[in-house]
């Protein structure tokens, strides 16, 4: 009876119980982490009661507004980033004292690097970027929402299911120890019969479905929902990178879904896709995984490149240099990204010709990437560069990403990969592109677009300190790993025996602490900015003298984005309108706006998906079956329900929009001298430019 109800879930599976049964430092750390879930959950619920936030919470959770969905993606990513950073610090500090064994047990360490990788890739980097794309793309192309708002909500729901599973594994059972790539046969049924790999395949498998749907949604949005006059070659660069990312998501996520499904069949039903015996072959998994995994790298980096493009133009007060070149380079990268996956396993024993061909294909990607960096530098050339926070991130990116590119080119050589594969050199390389690339891009983008959506700027001083801390922490934490990697240290080692490595690992450990401090400053910046938001308001909506359409709305942007959809006849439409003085002229005719109404669709799918995942992990078949059938019934039911819309009357739109335009015409605005102080109300005055 108990087994039928709870499957293989027993009292001992609960981590907090293990702490009582076997108290030591490792169980203390895991129990501490596990305790944060119920304690944190209870605090959140208490806060919701105390502040009477239940209603607004459900207002948000059921919203189909792309800005709210984007925000929820980013909040989710920040929560997961907290976990990822703590795990990273634990690992680096453990290795700093890890000569012949640190303070972590091997099993604990193995779970840490697996969850750290899985978490950071799937539940931090991707939600961050998808969140930004959600918030920005409809505004940049002059649309009111995405093509499929409800689908958007479902994507978020499915991502949340993955996050739920990886989080609940802290409390109940354990996560996989097979690394974020989860290679069988290590993760196969025979070697690893526990729940860990099941948590792994279900969390990334279900979240992966959500990402595929996001890809479809944004590809259609960008193809079909552009405003009048917004031809492809007038789209802002961020939208271009979002389009390429969407295409990559559509083609790259299905191999991941397939290999999760196949590994699942191996584990649950005794199939032999990737087993050692009966004709199974683990090489097929590795192939499939990297067919997803390599384009994934560019899913992570392209939107960040897009942010960098926007920042370079805006904060140097100048047109983007080489727009056509940048678009071409982005597309080149997107296409080439599907042709290089084999460089993740040069050492698998395939023929030399194959290795050499894929090595050269990998080198080719360096060409468009190099061109992009040169284009951004040329954008600054002849401009008037303002050293705002996003510009600091851009500068850090130029220098540090160049080093990451260098190590990437080194690893592209099969000859050298035979030495450096699986070493900490590789770990240094991908942190070197993901932190100065993706993370810097995301943080710069959040600082840049934050006032647009929430109506106030982030505090400047705190943001600058944060940027410096990230860069400093990164340099200390990861550049030493290049050296230890060349000295022969492999990744994923809980301990090591070579005393020559110690000084490097100590520096790296200290760097990790700085990265922790940097994350604390992210939260601090947010908190101090919310407290001081009255002084930071930018109601006119254009705090940075922006160039593209998203700045042509008040801040916070109303639910319908644009009172009247703008018409564009150039690349930097808003800059041109401001130059001509037509940006805030009155509009004669307003019309009723139809917006999709709130729905519980995504929430229901998220709840059922979580039940399905949890039920499958613990062999609680009744739960899995009920939730699976529930999902199908929900989808069919919603397909037959009539579409609900809410109408915003022309009169209401007119009132809000006219007030904004009138105030903008009557105010003076500020020059860029006052960009980062309280005088900045979000209205840009033509800048005073001195020519030497």
């Amino acid at each position: 009876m108990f087994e039928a109800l709870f499957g293989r879930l027993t009292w001992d599976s609960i981590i907090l119980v293990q702490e009582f049964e076997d108290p030591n430092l490792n169980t203390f750390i895991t129990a501490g982490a596990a305790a944060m879930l119920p304690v944190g959950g209870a605090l959140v619920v208490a806060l919701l009661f105390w502040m009477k936030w239940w209603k607004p919470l459900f207002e948000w959770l059921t919203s189909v507004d792309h800005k709210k969905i984007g925000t929820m993606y980013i909040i989710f990513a920040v929560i997961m980033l907290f976990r990822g950073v703590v795990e990273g610090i634990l690992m680096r500090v453990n290795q700093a004292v890890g000569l012949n064994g640190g303070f972590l047990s091997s099993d604990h360490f193995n779970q840490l690097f697996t969850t750290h990788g899985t978490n950071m890739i799937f539940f931090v980097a991707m939600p961050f970027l998808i969140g930004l794309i959600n918030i920005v793309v409809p505004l940049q192309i002059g649309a009111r929402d995405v093509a499929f708002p409800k689908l958007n909500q479902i994507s978020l729901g499915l991502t949340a299911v993955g996050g739920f599973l990886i989080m609940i594994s802290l409390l109940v059972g354990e996560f996989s120890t097979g690394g974020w790539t989860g290679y069988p046969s290590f993760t196969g049924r025979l070697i690893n019969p526990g729940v860990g790999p099941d948590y792994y395949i279900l969390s990334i498998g279900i979240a992966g479905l959500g990402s595929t749907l996001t890809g479809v949604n944004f590809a259609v949005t960008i193809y079909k929902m552009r405003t009048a006059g917004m031809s492809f070659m007038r789209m802002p660069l961020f939208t271009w990178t979002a389009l390429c990312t969407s295409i990559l998501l559509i083609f790259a996520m299905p191999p991941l879904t397939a290999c999760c499904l196949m590994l699942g069949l191996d584990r649950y039903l005794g199939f032999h896709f990737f087993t050692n015996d009966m004709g199974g072959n683990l090489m097929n998994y590795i192939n499939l995984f990297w067919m997803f995994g390599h384009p994934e790298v560019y899913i992570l980096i392209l939107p960040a490149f897009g942010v960098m493009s926007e920042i370079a133009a805006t904060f140097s007060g100048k047109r983007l240099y080489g727009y056509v070149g940048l678009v071409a380079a982005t597309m080149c990268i997107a296409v080439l990204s599907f042709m290089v996956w084999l460089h993740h396993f040069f050492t698998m024993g395939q023929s030399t010709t194959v290795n050499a061909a894929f090595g050269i294909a990998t080198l080719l990607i360096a060409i468009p990437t190099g061109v992009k960096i040169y284009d951004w530098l040329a954008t600054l050339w002849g401009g008037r560069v303002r050293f705002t926070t996003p510009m600091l991130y851009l500068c850090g990116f130029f220098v540090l990403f160049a080093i990451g590119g260098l190590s990437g080119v080194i690893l592209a050589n099969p000859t050298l990969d035979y030495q450096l594969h699986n070493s900490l050199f590789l770990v240094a390389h991908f942190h070197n592109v993901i932190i100065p690339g993706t993370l810097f891009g995301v943080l710069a983008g959040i600082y840049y677009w934050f006032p647009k959506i929430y109506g106030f700027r982030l505090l400047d001083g705190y943001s600058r300190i944060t940027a410096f801390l990230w860069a400093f922490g990164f340099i200390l934490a990861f550049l030493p790993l290049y050296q230890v990697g060349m000295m022969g240290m492999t990744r994923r080692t809980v301990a090591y025996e070579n005393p020559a490595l110690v000084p490097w690992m100590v520096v790296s450990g200290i760097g990790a602490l700085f990265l922790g401090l940097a994350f604390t400053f992210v939260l601090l910046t947010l908190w101090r900015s919310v407290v001081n938001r009255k002084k930071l308001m930018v109601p006119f909506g254009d705090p940075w003298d922006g160039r593209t359409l998203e700045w042509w709305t008040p801040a916070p942007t109303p639910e319908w984005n644009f009172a009247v959809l703008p018409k564009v006849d150039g690349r930097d439409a808003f800059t041109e309108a401001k130059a001509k003085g037509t940006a805030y002229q009155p509009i004669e005719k307003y019309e009723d706006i139809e917006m999709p109404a709130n729905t519980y669709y995504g929430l229901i799918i998220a709840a059922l998906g979580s039940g399905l995942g949890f039920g499958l992990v613990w062999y609680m078949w009744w739960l899995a079956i009920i939730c699976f059938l529930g999902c199908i019934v929900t989808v069919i039911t919603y397909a037959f329900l009539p579409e609900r819309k809410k109408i915003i009357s022309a009169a209401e739109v007119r009132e809000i929009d006219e007030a904004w335009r009138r105030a903008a015409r009557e105010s003076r605005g500020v020059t860029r001298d006052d960009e980062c102080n309280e005088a900045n109300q979000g209205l840009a005055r033509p800048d005073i430019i001195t020519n030497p």
Partner: protein
Amino acid sequence: MTDPPLTLAIAESFLQPMGPVAAEQLRHLKLVTLLTMIAVVPVLVATPWILWRYRRSKPTGKYRPNWESNRVLESLMWGVPILVVTLMGVSLWNMTFRLDPYKELGKDPLQIHVIGLDWKWIFIYPDEGVALVDELVVPEGRAVELTLTTDTVMQSLRISAIVGQIYAMPAMTTKLNFLAARQGEATGMNTQFTGNGFWKQKFQVFSVSQEEYEARMKKAQASDLALTADTYALLAVQGTAEEAKKSLHIKDRKGPIEMVLGDSKIFQRVLARYMVEDMTPESQPGSPSYDPAKSPLPAAPEKPMMDMKM
């Protein structure tokens, strides 16, 4: 390239190369780094310079808000990386073929069969009738060919100071050819994560004179231990070589485990097991329920097993 002076007693990595492969890898690393610098240095130099020249507070360059294209600059931006990548591509192609791990480095290389287990390596010298655990002894200056497989999850064998790594996978073989140019000691290891004992899965590589090599083989041939299906099953239990000594009842013996090759087909039998058997949790080494008594090896196949080489 001359050998650099020996800084460490044991060569840990290709920064102290002990053989031609590692030495060429180090040379190639330097070449690639230099070539890439052609594209990277301009960025490192231009970034601070441009930022300084065009800083808004006190610019020294002219403001050109609408400047967005320049043919000469554009062709340089694409041309320089294309040139660098072309040069690098040629050298990549050549080096990949020159240092192909499947390419023999001399006539009649010394054949050694390697079985990866959790968390140890068995080195089988079929011609000498000897097997060593976690110790690889090779004569200085002689070409060596390792043929690898594993009897658990995927592993990757690397002797950084001499040669790079190659994956070893169950039911399949891969090859790694190398040559130790001088005498000395190097560390070899598994670089592919395989579980709790992974970080301990290291072995010593000794490059010795021909006489020393022969003496070492003689000593092993005199061992009272034999590598048979039974002792093999005990070795396959998860644990380091030191831990395996307990189950082999040689707990107090110093030095690596050395064995006579009791069954000359053992390597083929390990390979064959995944072709003919439906593995169970008890018979699969590396599984938590692995039981040496319930893990028999099948007979060696009549014909040699399929080689993995494509």
